[in-house]
């Protein structure tokens, strides 16, 4: 069979091949595969699809809400006062709580919507009319790792499937020669490690593939010590020898799927370098994203954002971007808030704005959901003299594009920006809403494991209808 023929036979891409194998393998009883037996990979959509792809801009370490998208004038008024006199202060991780700390940055209203953004984001503020700013997100956990697992998998425990895995499990991949869940690693791997991107109890085919935004991108994509011609010859030999397999095994789908898998791997070897070659982009696009920036972390994040757009064009379902290393720390400013947040913002601001503009001008933003979120926010009071500790009680995330109401603010924290008090949301709500926009009912996308029908949203989660356009 020709390669083309094979590819067209497994047009459903990665997930499909994997599932085909699972079905055929009698070692797999039906509880290891989706309960709604899929004709092809995935079992959604359940309703109207608003977004086809997600780009998840993960802000590692927890950006401060009161310094970015949630201005609190009272912090100026009470700057330096003991927060304990004004509200109940919960234990924090370091418990070295100082006085209320005014934001070192000024806020200004932007766009037609007039949504205030701090001067940390001079570029993103120009796109504010695209954003739905959610100021009432909460997390259950004040430690990075718990909170990261919670943000990524809906559970604070290690080893659960990541949202990218769930999305691909629910919908399958539209991409024939790239994985459906890609993590573009800018340099920082979040606390909790690669398990933030794992497939947990879901089949390994849903695992996030870690790409670097430079070079070959992904591990083992480049043939080792061989030429393309030699490799092709070797693959042909493998194919020919595998043709004798039936004589040894009898006819089994599991073997046939494993054989087909080689063609996919081969096509991936070609597709990955293609999607990675951002130097093919016109000069003005490269410039727009910040590839010419003098600040290296900006250039790294620019490459990530640009590759993300190119992957969306190829049909990659879920792309997560982790932050570049700005030299000292992630967004986790227990001290030196000013420099830390400035450097982190500088790395991501221009590339994010460019991504939004570029998606818009290509008409892709309507079908691409962009989510900006950290694992928690930061305290409105200081840690030590000039830092802020973790705060899971209320912080800001934003969404843009695919089915989201543009230019709105949803929810609110109290007057100090400490606790969400209006339209308080949980991570599960964020997940439910993301799935909803993709056309997936979060209560129906289940997988049986350990005696339960597991969900990304566990037994929780409500779709935030108010931000759906």
């Amino acid at each position: 069979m020709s390669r083309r023929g094979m590819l067209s036979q497994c047009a459903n891409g990665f997930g499909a091949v994997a599932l085909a194998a699972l079905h055929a393998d009698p070692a797999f009883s039906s509880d290891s595969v989706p309960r709604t037996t899929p004709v092809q990979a995935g079992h959604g959509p359940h309703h109207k699809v608003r977004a086809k792809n997600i780009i998840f801009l993960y802000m590692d370490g927890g950006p401060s809400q009161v310094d970015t998208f949630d201005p609190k004038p009272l912090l100026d008024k009470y700057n330096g006062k003991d927060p304990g006199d004004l509200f109940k202060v919960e234990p924090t991780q370091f418990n070295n709580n100082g006085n209320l700390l005014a934001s070192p940055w000024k806020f200004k209203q932007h766009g037609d919507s007039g949504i205030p953004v701090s001067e940390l984001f001079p570029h993103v503020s120009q796109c504010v009319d695209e954003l739905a700013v959610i100021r009432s997100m909460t997390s259950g956990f004040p430690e990075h790792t718990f909170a990261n697992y919670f943000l990524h998998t809906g559970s604070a425990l290690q080893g659960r499937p990541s949202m990218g895995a769930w999305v691909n499990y629910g919908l399958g991949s539209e991409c024939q020669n790239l994985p459906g869940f890609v993590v573009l690693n800018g340099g920082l791997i979040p606390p909790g490690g690669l398990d933030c991107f794992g497939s947990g109890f879901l089949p390994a085919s849903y695992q996030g593939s870690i790409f670097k935004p430079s070079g070959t991108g992904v591990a083992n994509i480049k043939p080792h010590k061989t030429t393309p011609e030699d490799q092709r010859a070797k693959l042909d030999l493998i194919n020919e020898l595998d043709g004798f397999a039936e004589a040894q095994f009898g006819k089994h789908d599991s073997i046939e799927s494993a054989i087909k898998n080689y063609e996919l791997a081969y096509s991936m070897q070609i597709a990955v370098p293609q999607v990675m070659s951002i130097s093919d982009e016109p000069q003005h696009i490269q410039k727009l994203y910040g590839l010419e920036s003098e600040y290296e972390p900006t250039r790294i994040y620019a490459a990530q954002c640009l590759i993300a757009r190119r992957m969306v064009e190829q049909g990659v379902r879920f792309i997560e971007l982790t932050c570049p290393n700005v030299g000292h720390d992630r967004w986790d400013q227990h001290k030196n808030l000013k420099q830390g947040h400035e450097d982190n913002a500088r790395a991501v601001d221009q590339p994010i704005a460019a991504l939004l503009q570029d998606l818009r001008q290509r008409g892709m933003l309507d079908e691409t959901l962009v989510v900006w979120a950290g694992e928690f926010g930061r305290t409105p009071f200081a840690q030590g003299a000039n830092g802020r500790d973790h705060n899971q009680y209320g912080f800001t995330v934003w969404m843009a594009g695919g089915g989201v109401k543009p230019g709105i603010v949803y929810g609110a924290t109290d007057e100090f920006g400490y606790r969400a008090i209006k339209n308080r949301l949980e991570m599960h709500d964020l997940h439910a809403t993301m799935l909803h926009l993709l056309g997936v009912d979060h209560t129906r996308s289940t997988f049986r494991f350990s005696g339960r029908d597991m969900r990304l949203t566990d037994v929780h989660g409500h779709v935030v209808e108010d931000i759906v356009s």
Partner: protein
Amino acid sequence: MVIPDMRLSLTLFLIHGFLCAAGTSTQAKEQSSLVKHLEFFERDVRPLLVTHCYECHSTHAKRVEANLLLDSRASHLRGGDSGAAIVPGDASSSLLIEALHYDSYEMPPKGKLSDEDIQTLVHWIEIGAPWPDEPAPVAHSTQDDFDLEKRKTDFWVWQPMAASDLPTVQNIEWLNNDIDLFTLSQLEQAHIKPSRDAERTAVLRRLYFDLIGLPPTADEVKAFIQNKNPQATERVVDQLLESPHFGERWGRHWLDVVRYAESRGHEFDNDTPNAFQYRDYVIRALNADIPYDQFVREHIAGDLLPNPRLHPKDKFNESILGTGFWFLGEWVHSPVDIRKDEADRFDNMIDVFSKTFLGVTVACARCHDHKYDAISTADYYSLSGFLQSSDYRQIRFESMEHNRQVAIQLADIDSTYKQQIDGLLEKRGILAPATAPKLTDDCILFNYSDLPQDSFLQDGFIFGLSPQRAGEPYLDSATGHLKISTFGAAVNDPLWNGLESITEGAFQNQSVLTKIPKSGRTLRSPTFELINGEVHCLVDGTGHIIACVDSHRLVAGPLHKQTVVRFKDGQRWVRLNLDRYVGHRLHLEFIPESNQEIAVRMAVQGLSESALATFEKRINENDHQYEEYAKIAEAILNNDTQNNSTQTETDLSTRDIISSWKGEREQLASHIVRTSRLALSMMDGTGEDDRILIRGDSAKPGQIEPRHFLTAISGDKPLPIKKGSGRLQLAELVNDPTNPLTSRVIVNRIWHHLMGRGIVPTTDDFGFLGKRPTHPRLLDHLATRFLQEGRSIKSMIKYIVLSRTYQMSSHANQREKELDPSNLLWHHYPPRRLQGEAIRDSLLTLSGHLDTTAFGPPVPIHLTSFMNGRGRPKKSGSLDGDGRRSIYISVRRNFLSPFMLAFDTPTPFSSMGRRNVSNVPAQPLILLNDPLVVELADDWSKQAAKNITGTGFDAASKRIEWMYLSAFSRYPTKQETATSLAFLSSKAADSKSFDFDDTYWSELAHALVNTKEFIFLR
């Protein structure tokens, strides 16, 4: 809380009733106020409830949260999981108001109500929570009530095992052993024919991989083909079962079930030091084929066995190493909510325990009674009590059994001589004071002068077998003089100085605790609840105190520094500021500095400086009489020994006693084994029952649930536990032959590994949501036989692999495929993909790189540039893992091998008795492009060249044949040889001479390991 509520509301109704009956003007007034109240309710209160609460707390809610309804007055009073929602007339005591203020709960979750709205509800409660007389809304559906007995009766797994008669079959020729009766009878009933026998070489390959996880060599394959003895297969089976590699193969299966890892994961991926000792224990235990009940017992309570199993050669305590399995989970370095962290750790331990041994999901009952199985929340917390009563330590497993004997002898010697001294003094008319008045102050957390022997706990033996009593003679280590103790205390005996504990295989540990020499040198206080954070300990000497809060002890993070305090000689009262942990359960640990002596007397809580001074005075008064006694006694004793001029009878004895006491002690000291390696282990703490946590919330403790085993198996009567945790009793219940789970679960695991699918396919879940057994009678047959034949895992394996069922061909007939497409009845033997470990180990074997060294510290993982993150090991291991088998490669939770992950080695977080078998492009990408695979394949081609030298057609064909024999355990077909030769020739400049360049052979070798036959068993 319920009773006062009822009373209040009753009062309200009674008043109404009385007023109505009275029929006076007061009544009218009262009625008009009632009307007003009801108007207020309808206008202001009900709309608030409807808008903000009823989505989750009404009979019409999609799902009622926390079992709380708020749509009738009665339901407000009845409340939910956390008790009554309102106390009519008392808003400040009403949980509802607390929740609205976001004090305990935060309700409504979507945002706090305005102050005005909250005030409305406060007012409503203050005026008695008026509600119109209306029929209570009827729930549209209620969930089935949890009825444990009914569920038990209704479900197969709780039923006793049926030792039924063997089934009958027609085709008796087909049978190898009784297993075949069960499979064949079901096939015959379905009119399905079993497939033909597998080729002998296919069986051989299966056996090698199934039993030892390695391929047979080309020579072994050839010898087997030539051996026509009908017993040949059985011989191979016996030989493989005796192979030291058996334990490595089956040990890896077991490690999947106990979520084995060598680091803690989480933020910094800290070490789980010495975890590999557990891994090695498992391998040895499986190789030794210890009876499964012993294996289970050692896992659950190996530290408590009166006669632990000793290593046959090195004589160390094997049994205790089994308990390491409890502690292989994730640990958090610095949880903000420690109690919740403990509850999560216990959850994982219970989860793994119950899935591993019992095949049921007890952890599903943490927050509510099991949704489907006969397991109650009470069952969950009764098991949690066993863990609450147990502790973690790094055990000196090599020295402990030997030193235990030394400690007993030492206590014996000391007691003999002490009696002699006492007798001697008595003769002189010097009597120890009558017991001092016991201190009974509430502030005392524990006091070693009158601690019950049961509560005297330590890791090791250095504190003797009991605390020192006041007035007891002892040999002063510094001067060698006889002294009399003036207070009761736990004192470590300097005879034990110089203990050295060896930790291996650790490289990522930020814990301050690792530097404290704890192992074998720790005094552990009873567990207590902290009521006041001001804690003082009365101690002597130099050492450390560690407060172990809710059994948390990693102490690597920014928190909990207060829990570790160093104290110095002469400090006397050591203060711990534990304000943060008031309301928590904790215990203290006391560790002398290396080669230092400490005396631990007591700990108190809640004493201010002045109160402490007063308290101290009373202690001093108590001590005083002993000091007086000691002064007199010591004077006499030491005078006797020093004064040589007066040779009295006493004099001689005193001196003799001292020198002979010293002599015996020194003699014994030379027997102490001072150096030992460490391993993870459990130890008993204070025996206590746990509280049921309402909805699993550690902040909401409910009633105490006594320790017992699963109700459905042995009832819920509290176990009669005399001392400590009671884990040994738990182990006996797990092992009890009448327990229908344990044997079924283990034989099913064995079947699963040999046949590719369990009789119950869901190996870790035999419950309602799991799969039903395809061959229930076979399952019980195997389980019963297992019990009868001494619970030998090896015998069970042998029994299964010698069945004809196991030895069937993987070819299925079209008709059979249509009748039973999922092969549920086993009409053929399904091809199985090898695990990642077996693939890597085969490649190592072929290449000649395999280093068969067994055991020892993990080989560092090879780090690729894609493996990043906090806790990344500083040094990468070598590409080929030093040629060691995959089970010896380090398992760091945050840095798992990409090779293994791609081939479905599970992430270690819970029991995984059945791995996924996925088919992802990462697999071919690894086999095609990973430098390790390319290089091992290249070395394999060199091995081939070494074994079959020469050039020309015959030599080349022979070499291909050798490669097929070593990679696939069979001869190539003519076609296959021709294809390979054609490939080689196509590359060669001169194809006629059949003299091919090494690189072409290398390419061929690489192609062969990329064929499916290399990674599948036929």
